[in-house]
Structures are given as C-alpha cells and as structure tokens.
C-alpha cells in the first residue's frame, strides 16, 4: 500500500484492484455485479450526505441492471461484456431515460429524457451498470461545482474545499469510492481539473472521438465526453467502450480506434516529454511546482527525454476560450425558452410571448449561466463580432499551430493540470479569478487535442494534504501514446 492510501482521509477510497480484473471476476462468477452495486449503494448511503456527489442515485435500476448482468453471465454470455459489473456514475448533463437529467439547473429540474445518449447505450451494451447522476456546475459552466442549483459538491479530501468543476460530482464520486468510474464532459477542463483536485484520473479524448449525441450542448466545437477512474488503465477500459463514430453525431470522427486498455501498461521505448516554459509559471502554487519537478525527475529516471518547448499563447487561451465558449453557449442555450420543455414562468395578465421567454430564462438560469449568455451575446453582436469572435477564432488557429510546432519536438506535453490545489468554498468568488484557474486546460479544447490528468503527488495547504494533478496532452488522435505515457508517469509518481 502506498503512502497516499495510508494517509487518506476516510472519505477517500482507492480501488481494490484494476477494473479489468474486477470485470473478469464478474464474468467468471468469482463475484457478482449485484454484490458490487450493493457495496457502492451502502457507501453512498453512508457518505454522500457529506459529499453530495450525486443529484440522484438510481438504486433500484442499478440493482435490476446488476441482476441482469449476473443472469447474462450465468447464461454463458459474459464474454461479450468487457465492462461486466463495472459500476459507473454519469454526469447529470448526459441524458438517459432513467431518472431526470437536470444539468444541475432549475431550468431542467424536472426534465426526463425520452432517449439515452450514445455513450449510455454503449456502456450498457458492454455490461456497465449506472448508479446515478452526478452534480455539476449548472450547464457545465464553472470550475468548482459551486454553481449547481442544487448545492455544491464537497471534495472528499477536505469537505471544506471544492472538488473542482464542472464535473465535480463525477470526480468526487470516484475519489470517494462511490463507483468504479464515471463519465464527465470537458469543454475547457471540466474533466481534467476536477480529477486533479480530487486525486483521480480524468481523460478528455480528442474532439470527435466520443459521440456527443445526448450530451446537453454547451460549446459544441469544444465539448467532449470522457471518463474519470482510479487509474489510467481503468479510464482506458471505459474509453474503449464509448469511443468511435456514431451516425447520430455528425462531428464524431471516423478514425481508427483499436482497443487501448490492454496496451496502456506497455511502456513506450522512446518518450519525448515537452515541458512548456509557460507551464512553469510563477502563478503555480509552490506545492504544485514541486510535484511537477519530482515527476520530471521520475520521468528522466524512466529514460524519457525532457524537451523544452514554447507555448507562448498559453496565456491568451483564457481570453480566446471566454469568447468562443460563451458565444457557442449563448446560441446553444437559446433553446431553453419555456415552451417545449424546461422551466416556464408564470405570466401576469397581458404579458406576451416575449415576456414568457425572458422571465422563464431569468428564473430558470443561475447567475453564471446568465453571465455567459450575456457575454456570448455581446461578443456576437453587430459591431463586436469582428473585434471579439472573429479574432478569437483567429487566435484559435494560432494556438492550434503552436501545438503542432511543439509536437514536432515531443510526443506529449506535460505540466500541471491546475495552477492551484482544491480551494476553499467561496475562494474564487470573482468570476474572472475562477476563469483564470483554467489556464492549462482550455487550450486543449481550443485545439481539439486529447488531454489527461492523473495524480502526480500531494501538496500541503492550510494543514491539509491535497492531491496535485499533472496533465499530459498529445496530438489529435494520439490517444495510445497519451495513455501509455500517462500510465508510465502515473506509476513513476507513485513510487
């Protein structure tokens, strides 16, 4: 047992064994899916009151699904289920027929999806069991899960601190041992940053790798679904089940996607790790900088070559992102008008359709969502489009080209996932200070490349030991290199 586990607070739970072995045990009848679901339900019942990872726990449906998996195994059909008995939590902005899909918004507080997202269908077909829907910043807009209309999620490492966001519930659910893995969505870091702050793995695949059909749209050119897990190998197993072209998402990529789970443990014989000067910013918390330095030493000891690279547009990424993402959001969220579904305001006599739209939206959306709609509308408005939106799209190309040049010199880029560790509630109450936390994650989405955050070590802050996440980024569709490198570094950082 590693030091990390010895010193874990009681709300943190690591995996007993790799998920691939657990699923093999279920397929072989050495354990049952039902007993696994019962274990997680008991843990959720005991501890989710302190964490609030879940918006809704699907206890009955999970038990029934587990029984169905066990019956399939008994009937000799277990070999078709790579995720047999894997218990997975789903971010509450991914639709499924079971329960509600709220996006942690008052707007969708009672919304029940009439269909399942593609990722849900694929996971179910692989033998996975859904245990519930996890909390998020409303409509995935935020970096702390404090923007949820249903109350914040707390970090299992220290319940006085945020779990990160927007997929804070999915990250906390894995860290607290409420499930084997979970799904989140990442528009500007919403998988990687909470994974870093909660000490688990969070993986954002290349844009287009995973179908967005059934993911409630935020920034459609940036959004990507990906897994949270206890290890890189576990994340790869879940990813293998959801990756691939989907006729229902015209932006899903028609690219080669051979299974990676069996390959991630193979070290890369030659690995060039690029470390951008800009990622060693003085804005990094001292504990974060120290973890990065130790990881680089460990990587060198593995025989990896450390290469200096330049990503001078790192800093402009925040400005670029906070034009493009709100612009796309203002358009995507126009659908919430109080007419077809979602919250509808009560009108005073004589008020018209226009008032219905404006009041329903003002009542249904929280402050951060309204702020981003206003910002997006502003940057797209006549007279400002060229100065903001068009210029941000030009910056986007420059950022992508900068990554292209960096990847001529290295296979992966390494740095901190977040400049800071988990911060106390209310610690970033000014919206801009919250946005600036996304400095290392937004450009991944802007360029459409894959990124993964894994635990690189720990830092002490305020007398509390908190996880520090490290991020690797790779060229588009280079998931195999990315995951194999991440598995190497994950092992090296633990020893």
């Amino acid at each position, binding site marked *: 047992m590693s030091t990390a586990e010895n010193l874990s607070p009681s709300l943190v739970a690591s995996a007993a064994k790799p998920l691939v072995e657990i699923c093999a045990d279920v397929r072989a009848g050495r354990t049952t899916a039902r007993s696994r679901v019962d274990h997680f339900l008991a843990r959720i019942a005991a501890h989710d009151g302190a964490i609030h990872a879940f918006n809704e726990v699907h206890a009955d449906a999970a038990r029934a699904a587990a029984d169905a998996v066990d019956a399939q195994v008994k009937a000799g059909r277990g070999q078709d289920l790579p995720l047999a008995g894997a218990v997975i939590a789903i971010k509450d902005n991914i639709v499924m027929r079971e329960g509600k899909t709220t996006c942690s918004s008052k707007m969708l507080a*009672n919304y*029940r999806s*009439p269909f399942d997202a593609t990722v849900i269908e694929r996971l179910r077909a692989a033998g996975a069991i859904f245990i519930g829907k996890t909390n998020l910043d409303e409509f995935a807009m935020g970096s702390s899960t404090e923007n949820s209309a249903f109350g914040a999620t707390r970090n299992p490492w220290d319940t006085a601190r945020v779990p990160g966001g927007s997929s804070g519930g999915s990250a906390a659910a894995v860290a607290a041992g409420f499930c084997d893995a979970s799904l989140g969505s990442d528009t500007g870091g919403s998988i990687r940053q909470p994974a870093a702050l909660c000490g688990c793995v969070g993986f954002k695949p290349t*844009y*287009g790798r995973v179908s967005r059909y059934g993911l409630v749209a935020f920034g459609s*050119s940036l959004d990507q679904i990906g897994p949270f897990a206890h290890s890189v190998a576990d994340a790869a197993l879940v990813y293998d089940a959801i990756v691939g072209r989907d*006729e229902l998402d*015209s*932006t899903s*990529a028609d690219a080669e996607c051979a299974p990676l789970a069996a390959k991630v443990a193979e070290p890369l014989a030659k690995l060039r790790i690029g470390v951008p000067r800009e990622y060693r910013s003085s804005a990094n918390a001292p504990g974060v900088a120290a973890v990065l330095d130790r990881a680089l030493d460990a990587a060198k000891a593995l025989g990896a070559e450390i290469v200096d690279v330049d990503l001078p547009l790192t*800093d*402009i990424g925040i*400005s*670029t992102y906070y*034009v493009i993402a709100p612009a796309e959001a*203002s358009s995507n969220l*126009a659908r919430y*008008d109080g*007419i*077809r*579904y*979602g*919250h*509808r305001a009560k009108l005073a006599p004589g008020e*018209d*359709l*226009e008032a*219905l739209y*404006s009041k329903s*939206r*003002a009542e249904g*959306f929280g402050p951060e969502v*309204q*702020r981003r*709609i*206003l*910002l997006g509308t*502003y940057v797209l*408005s*006549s*007279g400002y489009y060229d*100065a*903001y939106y068009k*210029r*941000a*799209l*030009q*910056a*986007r*190309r*420059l950022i*992508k080209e900068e990554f292209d040049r960096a990847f001529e010199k290295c296979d992966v880029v390494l740095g901190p996932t977040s400049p800071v560790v988990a911060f106390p509630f209310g610690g970033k109450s000014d*919206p*801009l200070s919250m*946005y600036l936390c996304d400095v290392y994650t937004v450009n991944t989405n*802007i*360029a*459409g*490349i894959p990124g993964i955050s894994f635990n690189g070590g720990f830092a002490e802050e305020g007398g509390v030991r908190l996880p520090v996440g490290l991020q690797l980024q790779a060229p*588009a569709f280079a998931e195999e290199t990315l995951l194999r490198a991440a598995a190497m570094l994950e092992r090296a950082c633990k020893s």
Partner: protein
Amino acid sequence: MVCYLSGMSDSLTDADIRKVAKLSRLSVTESQVPAIRTQLSSILGHIAKLQALPTEGVEPMAHPMKIVNRLGADEPKACMPVEELLKNAPAVEDRYLAVPKVLGEGGGA
C-alpha cells in the same frame, strides 16, 4: 436584430447591459444592472488581450476538425411518439404546445 452598443468594454454602459439582456431574452431588473456591468467589464477587460494579438491574414478556425458534410441514407425511420415528447412540455393543449397569444391586433408580435 441589429445591435449597436455604445463602445468597447472599458465603456460598457447600463444601457448596453439592458440591450444585451434584451437580445439574450433574459429579463434583468434595474437593481441587477450595475453588478452585471461591473462583472462583464472586468471579463471583457481581460479578453481585450486578444486585440494585441497579431492576426493579420490568419484564417479564422471555427472548429477543430476538418468536417465534410455527410449524407445519411434517405430511408424513413420511426420517430419518437409525440406523447413521449410532450411529457416534458410545461403546457399542452390537445397534442400541441400551448403558448401565450403571439399575434397582436396589428398582426405583429
């Protein structure tokens, strides 16, 4: 709708906020306007860094992938039952969504 706002971010006015709120179909009370103006000005002030970036001749990139339109097979498929879709509707009359009166006396909205 054409929207001309008063100036760049450093001179965002209360009138600009009301205008953008109207375009956004968000009802904003007078008491909220100053706080929204302060926050948006602060964010736009940061975003203004983009103005210093040399972008002459750079082709805007709206999307990370080179996307080509793909045609689906032109085959009829079953669609979702109307009753199923209307379950989430806040107000329904018969099999239709109910909305407030749209057309005014003069035929306008």
